[in-house]
């Protein structure tokens, strides 16, 4: 098959058209799992009502906090500046609790400040890296109207509100209605009916307060 000269010109044009412009690497491309989870969190906020005092305090932003080793990368980029419930979305990232604790400060200033910021988040996402610390995290934000979402086994049993059950295949989640009530939140039943498991009654073991 002889290649004509015109084909060479086309081929050259194609290469010029797509010639790589190496840009500075910012966040890495997220895996599909975290792209889906990010979309889920964004969508979820539309179905949640926060208590009135939280709404008043938050100065026009809806804060999503992410604690721990974060695999989201640039997953939230497309919605950086979108508005939900008339508030601008703000993504805040926090280091792992174990790292916060390891800073050798006498008064644990950094830890205290982080906890205060967590309490002001609307949604707090607890990454899988916090599997040994999540109960402490949940305790520290209890009563501050924070929608806690995790991806750790037993997260909802430990008082978390929504949890992505660790799963290789797709986003399967469970919910804890008691925790919803304690945080004085309201979550639409449209969300709850999609959950694989919903904790409704008081768990027998009440050591999770």
């Amino acid at each position, binding site marked *: 098959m*002889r290649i*004509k000269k015109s084909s060479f010109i086309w081929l050259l*044009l194609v290469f010029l058209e*797509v010639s790589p412009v190496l840009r500075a690497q910012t966040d890495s491309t997220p*895996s599909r799992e975290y*792209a889906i989870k990010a*979309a*889920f969190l964004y*969508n979820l906020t539309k179905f949640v009502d926060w208590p009135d005092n939280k709404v008043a305090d938050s100065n026009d932003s809806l804060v999503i906090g992410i604690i721990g080793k974060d695999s989201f990368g640039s997953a939230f980029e497309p919605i950086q500046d979108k508005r939900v419930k008339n508030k601008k979305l703000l993504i805040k990232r926090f280091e792992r609790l174990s790292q916060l604790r390891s800073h050798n400060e006498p008064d644990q200033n950094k830890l205290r400040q982080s906890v205060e910021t967590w309490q002001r988040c609307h949604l707090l996402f607890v990454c899988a890296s916090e599997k040994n610390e999540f109960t402490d995290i949940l305790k520290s934000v209890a009563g501050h109207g924070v929608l806690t979402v995790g991806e750790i086994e037993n997260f909802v049993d430990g008082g978390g509100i929504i949890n992505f059950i660790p799963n290789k295949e797709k986003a399967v989640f469970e919910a804890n209605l008691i925790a919803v009530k304690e945080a004085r939140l309201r979550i639409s039943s449209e969300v709850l009916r999609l959950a694989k498991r919903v904790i409704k009654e008081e768990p027998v073991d009440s050591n999770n307060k």
Partner: protein
Amino acid sequence: MLLSDANLRSKPFLGVTSMPLSKKPLLFPLVLRGIMVLAICSKLFASQPTTGNDYLFEMSLEQLIELPYDVSTASKYQQEISDAPASVTVITADEIRKYGYHTLPDILNSVPGFYINYDRNYHYLGIRGFRRPGDYNTRVLVLIDGHRTNENVGDASYIGTQFPVDVDLIDRVEIIRGPGFSLYGNNALLAVVNVITKGANKLQGLELSGQLASFNSRRGRATYGKVFGEDAQLLVSATGYESEGQQLYFKEFDSPSTFNGLVKNDGDKFGNFFAKASVGNFILTAAHTAENKGIPTAPWDSVFADSRTQTSDDTTLIGLTYNRNLSDWASVKARAVYGSYDYQGTWPTNNAPPGEDPDIVLAQDSWSGRWCDTELQLFAQPLENHKLVCGLESRYNIRQNQQSWDEMEVYLDDHRSSQSWGLYLQDEFAVSDKLTFVAGIRHDRYDTFGGTTNSRLAAIYHPMNNTTLKLLYGEAFRAPSAYELYYNDGDYTQKASLNLRPETIKNYEIILERELNKKMRATVSGFHYIMHDLIDQYIDPADGLLVFKNLNEVKATGIETGLEGMWGSGLKTRVSYSYVEAEDDATGQQLVNSPNHLAKLNLTTPILEDRLFAGLGLLYSSKARTLSGNYTDNFTIVNLVLTYENVIKGLEISAGLYNLFDTKYGFPGAGEHVQDIIYQDGRTLMIKFIYRFK
């Protein structure tokens, strides 16, 4: 598969006759121009760079929780379709249901560039212009949950009623068009089809299904799934099917002594059992099907309209997979599989010389295979931008037996066993955010022919976040099968072919994919492949005996274009067009049974709220040449399916009309057929219900 001693098989396999060389237009410039136009258009319409995942933010929670995390076949680990170094198509259980695909051939018939043939015995898959009459799906690798299903006597894969998984138990089918790219070994020449089955988490409780269709076809299924806590689940299912078949007419047999061409021997029946269990990191998949089909076409010179003419195919597959994360950046997978295949064919044959009273003997042949596969695969990402996969696969063919006999004599009784192993390594190197290179190599050793090494190279480039350009090169091989190596009838008409080399393919492909406005994906691709050393039968002039030899070279060039998308109000469409020219390299002749144009449209839309769905399928195929030099007609087939969910709680009913316009169409017959063209069914109806107990 039987050679009667009364007749030599004299029809040449590629149907090469003495027609003049055809004029071939240069295809590559066309492909390049198409890609250029698409690239320019996409630049024109591009606004700001947007991530490829934008469309996810438009989806509802309900939709998001249904999305699978991985397209795992193309590189044997989790990957986005746009990052996979191949042309990938994924068909989900939801699409299977809404488009009314009731068998695996229906599903595969919707893939761009694929075409399904049926000869009233088996279903055959044509890929990118290649499916010669007489080929038994040996050049496509069919997997169930990653385990090979190609049997080990003829290396054939059986996708019709012999396939051991009920279509309702399929979670999704992942299809790679093009060579299996050195990760898969034998048979992955033209495509890899991985059928991934549902686990109990998708089918909890008891589910019953019943189906009635034309020609007194009945099918029933019972499935039970249970999830035990977080760590274990079990699914068991059984399906039974029986079809009386219709009376058929074959003009080739239209004479008073052969019932004026009428025959009623198209009955089909099978029993299937399936189980899938997972405990911790282990997944066990077990499937068994025993199937039996009456054959009305009277192939292999068998007596016309003798109801004893039939084939039976029994398949068993038991596969165990173990997956484990070793650390944040490494994981291991181990697999062990046991497979078995038993085929038997019965061909009443008239041994009397012409003019004398018939002397009918019951000629029979059988294949019996048992095999055991193991694989160990390691995935590691030791550096941020290097993903490594390496693995070792081994195959032990416990038994590869072929037999043929009739009441008077045993013509063939061959018993074999053999081994092979393969070692592969692949690196995916992310040079930058936008550019990734993939390089892979695999070496296989067979104790029949020695070794073969095959490699793959790919460059995947994202000029913008919603556009992907892939440049691919791949090699693959097909080892000579036990049938090709050892079949003989005692050197009466055919001798064994002991010096066969593997067939090989080299494939060059360029793919441009773009996500248009967040809910649609367009693809244009151009490919060129060359197959060497294709194994065919020929008559050795030295002794007049038939033998298999590495005889032929085929090359093909083509383009595939596709568009899939979701529109408002739940309408989903998938449309594709492909053009291919596949020819025999020595003569320049277009291949037999290689239609140039294929166009497909599938759409599904909700009609009534969210409970009633309509699915429309349209398939166009241009004409194909037959073995005797004629052509089948162009045809268009339309299917219409209505699905009604939750008629009452837990009950789903669907009804489908297939070949809605009663189009008459057919496929080229093979060397064993008297028929030049084998015509297919007209309009048929199917009604199905599924009831879930909760």
